[in-house]
């Protein structure tokens, strides 16, 4: 077995096992750490698929940004209130029903789909995409989407500042 395959299966195992762990663990903090492992495993799979830019963006945005803030939040609530934050199981029947149904639909769809003969697979360039091409595409063909995402992020920023910054009277209880 070539070394690439071994690495691929290692990342696959990491992703799968940590995803299972998220489901089975009751400790919310452990689940958050397992989610980090899932994302890193997925980043590894992206690299082996030739999409290294996506992989690194995944690490930078999800692991380095979002998840760290999430863990930070869990830790603060967990230790300060003394009560353990744990997940509990509700609605077992409907939960199992819906997830089994979704799994069936997905498995059926993947089995029926003929990926190799799809148009966008056949027309895809065989050379790995370069960062330069990606930048050019974003600034020309997809510039509208890019700008809209920028505005969305700006809105989120303003919203966060509004929620976090305007709850106290300046000068009365500011330290």
């Amino acid at each position, binding site marked *: 077995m070539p070394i690439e395959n071994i690495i691929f299966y290692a990342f696959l195992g990491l992703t799968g096992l940590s995803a299972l762990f998220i489901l089975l663990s009751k400790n919310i*903090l452990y689940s958050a750490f397992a989610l980090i492992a899932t994302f890193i495993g997925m980043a590894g799979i992206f690299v082996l698929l030739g999409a*290294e*830019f996506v992989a690194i963006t995944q690490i930078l945005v999800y692991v*380095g940004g979002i998840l*760290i803030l999430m*863990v*930070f939040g869990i830790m603060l609530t967990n230790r300060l209130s003394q009560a353990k934050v744990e997940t509990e199981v509700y609605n077992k029947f409907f939960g199992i029903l819906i997830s089994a149904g979704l799994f069936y639909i997905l498995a059926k769809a993947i089995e029926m789909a003929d990926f190799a003969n799809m148009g966008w697979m056949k027309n895809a360039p065989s050379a790995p995409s*370069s*960062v330069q091409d990606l930048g050019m595409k974003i600034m020309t063909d997809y510039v509208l989407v890019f700008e809209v995402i920028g505005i969305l992020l700006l809105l989120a920023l303003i919203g966060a500042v509004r929620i976090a910054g305007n709850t106290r009277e300046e000068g009365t209880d500011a330290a």
Partner: protein
Amino acid sequence: MYAFLFFLNFVLIYTIFAVYAERKISAFIQDRYGPMETGPYGLLQTVADLLKLLQKEDIVPLAADKRIFKVAPLIIFTSVFAGFAVLPLTSDFGGSQIETGIFYLLAIVSLDVIGILMAGWGSNSKYALLGAMRSVAQIISYEIPLGLSVVCVIMVSQSLNLQEIVYQQGIFINAIDPNAQNFLFGIKALGIETTHIGGFLTWNIFRIPFFFLAYLIFFIASLAEANRAPFDIPIAESELVAGFHVEYSGFRWAMIMLSEYGMMLLISFLGAILFWGGWNTPLPNIGSVALADWTSGEPGTIAGHLWGAFWLVSKALLTVGLQIWIRWTYPRLRLDQLMNLSWKYLTPGAIILVLVSALWRLLMI
């Protein structure tokens, strides 16, 4: 693979002597001798300390979250060491030359925050938790000016590949792009071509003079990233004992220290590569006195490897020395001053510099 073995051994040996240098330099600044007993001039002091650390009992606090506590130092060291994977050491030797080198480096290094959070939370100690929270807040804040100052360099060099960025700063620029030219201060209109003069004239910091400000921001932010004084508020001895690693002992503590010094080295390498010409020689060709040609070998030859490694390692170690000097010279910043500096001064400054580099790039082509 060879780069992995080289950097692993280099980091280990460097750390031993960096700790020794730290003690000696601090002793010099405070007008005392420092370690003198073990070996000549106390040279073996850190080796002895290391041997002692390895023999120590691995103490895990009873109330600690044991799994998280035990794995945290490994994660911190792994994420810092993973950053070395893309560093070009010489013109033909170094880590992976992926197209997204610098992007990868910044992303992977930010993972050490996870390890710090795990260490602080898993210790189940107030000091450790406070230290970890301060540390994470500080590292996340200073990643923004750090990233923006790196973006300045990327704007000018038009590449994320670290090896390419280094090639652009020396006499071998034509090895990657036959038509590339360098001009004095990067301004083409001046008409003074420095492509074959090389030396410090083609370094980014000289090619684009205002990059000195960008480097200043980069350097300050990198001190904060490595939790070094004057930004060592996460491990402030006088209030938090030792911050997030207060409960660690023996080998695990040694790993945390190793990653702190590893981070210093990594960020020094990065600064040298981005701003100070990487493995390029500082000496320019002056007419028939071809100093640049004499002090750098052709890429791929043994001379090229030796000169390249010599220049890059010297630059990085000098920067580490500068970090040590600053640690023992400046007092620690207060928490609010720390955040003010990052958000009110460095970040807006870095954003302006990104704009200026875009304009400067227009002068270069």
